[in-house]
């Protein structure tokens, strides 16, 4: 009995410590300020924008720095940011940007010189290319003239208005001697955007303060913090107990774990990500020599199309993605980008129809054997494909199960091959050692880069270098359309060309888009009064290639400590007192027990 009492007492102390911790939290320096804490399950790789590649870091840099242009929060069209206006030359090769008269957070004026220095740094220093090298590849020269920034291009490029490079303050960054080895951790940072970074504890958090002199007007909150979590399940716990106020990029299981909490808004909107199957349709290197060991049957467009007809995308969305995705009847640009999104209609549209898939294969001469598995028309090699997925991704495992089932219906065997991510990237992007592989891509407001991953030039060199291909695709029609859209400065006309490129990918099927995953996020409505997504109403909050959601948000003040000062000291005294009392109690209890034991002997 006494033992139980003692245990209860210990539990009591534990609870008191817990309560005390809570009190300490309430007592924190944050009290009375408007602070919004954003959870992130990705660690900041670098606070140096020349080096940072992870979404969390580029998002933070979008909140700190200005760009030439930003996507409009409603239409996603390029709209003025640090560049107030711009004019292309007649031939589309020379662009003049008028840089806004505003100030860096240290009071120095922002000039075209800053922008010119930033671009020239990347063009001239290989070590500065890490983050945004490709974005200046087509730049011939960049010069400044007062507030005018003049960019000369090697070839016309419509997407110049979606340049992803933050403009850096020259007077601060030119002092950095080795840009490749500089972590960027000098605070407070000098910025021209809505926030100023004031502290970064690696793998713990980044603190940003509102920039009071921001030219659009200071943000409506005092501080924005990004809090790092090693593991997504813990971040959901953090949101539930109020340690963080918002978390983006959730997986379906974590998103569903937020259900039922009255203070949490489950944000479920169309996303910027598509999932697709990459098919080894005869991988080659840049000199057109075959590479890898892809199954010969997949070179046949008919087989690829048959695979497409055999996939029940609705079922995949419902059962693999728990309904938190949209079945894809288009290609790699997701529907949230209304200007560039293309969807198949009429005869081109491929739906779930295994009978039709079987018909196509029968007609093309892939006969079924006694075991129900088809063989090549001219030999005895069976249609047995490997499906490469990543290790430790339950969703891909599940997808593999379903695809295996679908393809069995049409006499094709699919076996799953799991690879760790670096091996996966190598086999599906360089050495071509795969038949079918899972793939996916986040698409920016301008889809040029994601389209470029299917260009001939992106294939690996004969030495197995470079690349960045997502399909080993090399198709004349596609290349021609790509070149045309580069030159087309008229947005609707360019969108038309981009749609044709997607149609080509859809019908030729080097990749088969299966679904567009939703953007799943969660935030506390008792802390965030309002937040606007990009695009407004039904878009993305975190990771939206825009500063807008985290600039425009409004928050509730952090609760001030329950009472001034006294309560905390009181609580500490209380805890100390409780510990003493319980310690004494335990001491006497054991004494008493000892004497009982003595009595027994």
């Amino acid at each position, binding site marked *: 009995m006494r033992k139980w009492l003692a245990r209860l007492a210990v539990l009591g102390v534990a609870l008191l410590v817990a309560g005390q911790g809570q009190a300490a939290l309430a007592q924190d320096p944050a009290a009375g300020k408007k*602070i919004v804490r954003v959870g992130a399950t990705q660690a900041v790789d*670098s606070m140096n924008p020349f080096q940072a590649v992870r979404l969390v870091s580029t998002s933070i840099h979008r909140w700190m720095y200005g760009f030439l242009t930003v996507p409009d929060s409603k239409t996603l069209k390029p709209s003025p940011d640090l560049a107030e206006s711009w004019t292309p030359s007649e031939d589309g090769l020379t662009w003049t940007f008028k840089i806004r008269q505003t100030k860096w957070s240290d009071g120095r004026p922002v000039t075209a010189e800053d922008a010119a220095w930033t671009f020239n740094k990347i063009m001239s220093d*290989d070590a500065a290319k890490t983050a945004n090298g490709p974005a200046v590849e087509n730049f011939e020269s960049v010069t400044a003239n007062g507030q005018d920034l003049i960019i000369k291009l090697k070839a016309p490029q419509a997407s110049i208005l979606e340049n992803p490079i933050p403009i850096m303050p020259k007077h601060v960054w030119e002092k950095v001697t080795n840009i490749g080895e500089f972590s960027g951790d000098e605070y407070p940072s000098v910025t021209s955007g809505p926030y100023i970074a004031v502290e970064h504890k690696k*793998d713990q958090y980044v603190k940003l303060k509102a920039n009071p002199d921001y030219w659009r007007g200071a943000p409506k909150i005092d501080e924005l913090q990004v809090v790092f979590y090693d*593991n997504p399940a*813990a*971040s959901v716990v953090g949101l539930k*107990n109020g340690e963080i106020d918002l978390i983006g990029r959730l997986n379906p299981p974590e998103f569903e774990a937020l259900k039922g909490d009255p203070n949490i808004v489950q944000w479920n909107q169309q996303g910027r990500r598509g999932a697709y199957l990459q098919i080894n349709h005869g991988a080659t290197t840049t000199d057109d020599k075959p590479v890898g060991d892809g199954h010969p049957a997949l070179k046949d467009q008919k087989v690829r199309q048959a695979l497409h007809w055999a996939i029940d995308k609705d079922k995949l969305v419902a059962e693999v993605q728990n309904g938190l995705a949209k079945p894809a009847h288009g290609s790699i640009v997701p529907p949230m980008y209304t200007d560039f999104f293309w969807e198949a209609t009429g005869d081109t549209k491929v739906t779930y129809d295994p009978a039709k898939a079987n018909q196509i294969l029968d007609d093309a001469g892939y006969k079924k054997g006694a075991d129900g598995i088809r063989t090549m028309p001219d030999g005895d090699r069976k249609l047995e494909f490997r499906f490469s997925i990543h290790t430790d991704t339950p969703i891909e495992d599940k997808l593999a199960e379903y695809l295996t089932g679908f393809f069995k219906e049409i006499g094709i065997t699919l076996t799953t091959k799991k690879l760790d991510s670096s091996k996966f990237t*190598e086999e599906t992007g360089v050495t071509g050692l795969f038949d079918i592989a899972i793939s996916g891509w986040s698409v920016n407001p301008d889809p040029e880069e994601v389209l470029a991953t299917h260009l001939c030039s992106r294939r690996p060199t004969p030495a197995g270098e*470079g690349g960045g291909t997502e399909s080993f695709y090399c198709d004349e029609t596609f290349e021609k359309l790509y070149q045309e859209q580069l030159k087309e400065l008229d947005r609707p006309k360019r969108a038309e060309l981009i749609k044709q490129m997607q149609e080509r990918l859809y019908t030729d099927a080097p990749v088969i888009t299966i679904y567009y995953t939703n953007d799943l996020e969660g935030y506390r409505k008792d802390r965030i009064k309002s937040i606007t997504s990009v695009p407004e109403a039904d878009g993305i909050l975190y990771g939206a290639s825009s500063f807008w959601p985290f600039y425009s948000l409004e928050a509730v003040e952090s609760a001030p400590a329950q009472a001034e000062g006294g309560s905390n000291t009181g609580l500490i005294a209380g805890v100390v007192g409780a510990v003493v009392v319980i310690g004494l109690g335990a001491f006497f209890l054991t004494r008493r027990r000892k004497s009982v034991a003595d009595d027994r002997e």
Partner: protein
Amino acid sequence: MTAPLEAVEPAATQAAGPAGDDRPARRGILRYALSKAGGALFSIAMVIVGTFFLFRLLPGDPVRALAQGRNMTPEQLDLERRKLGLDQPLINQFFDFVGDTLRFDFGMSYEYKRPVLDLIGDRIGATLLLAGVGLAVAVSLGIWQGMRAGWRHGSRFDKFSTGTSLVLWSVPTFWLGLLLLLVFGAYFKIFPSRGIQSVDAPDGFAYVLDVAHHMVLPVITLVGVVYAQYLLVMRSSLLDEVGQDYVTTARAKGLRDDDVRRRHAVPNALLPTVTLVFMRVGFVVGGAVTVETIFSWPGLGQLFYEAVRVPDFTLMQGTFMLITVAVIIMNTLADVVYHILDPRVRSA
């Protein structure tokens, strides 16, 4: 204070008896310690060699892995390769690596752009705090419960504590940690979900409380999974002592039961546990990887985990070597300390 000595005496006189004076014995310890240290140095050398080849056997091109799926030009890849020294012949790479390692130069972390040694220095404090407290609690709890369970062998307390500790021992650390997070973090909302401190941490004494508050769940997880080993070793070695003549004698002298246990049986039974503790101290540095990743604890374990996720090869190499060498050193110390504590080993 003299009691433990008395208790050890029967064993001590038995073993050291013929030697008479203790000088040869002391020289023996020195020789023993030297031979153990030699063995440890050999192991460390093997670790260095092993590390070099292990990290070069890993599948995938490290430079490509560093690119993380970004589109890099061949020139950029070459630059990265030169930076990592991968353009050199393997044998040169090997000697460079050994030389650097002996100078405690573990290279620059690719991701953090800082020397690996600095990073380790930053993180080791958090790990020692977490794992040290965890070890202390696990050892105290294990020894205390093991003592009681062994003394009252077969009692309800014995069954209960042995059962509980074994169940926890069998539970995966990750699962236990997440369960605690869900129950105490999300449901009761009394413990924080991450880190060593609040983002806006208070100053002074409140800061200590803040850190303590953050430590509760990680420590419980760490203790829950490992304390069974101390409990079981303590329990079984005490069981061995219970039937010994000297215990019967002590009882016959009319000593109280608690005194017999505390002054006579336990000191003798403690030896194996102490050895175990020393051996585990080596794992303190590396043993908290899982717990650190569950609770986003900014220690070495998290550093290693992040290095694997990137993958940041120099950082992986550095932390891997540190963790391995810590285990070797502590094992060697355990051997030597055991030698000093238990005279019976000396003659063996």
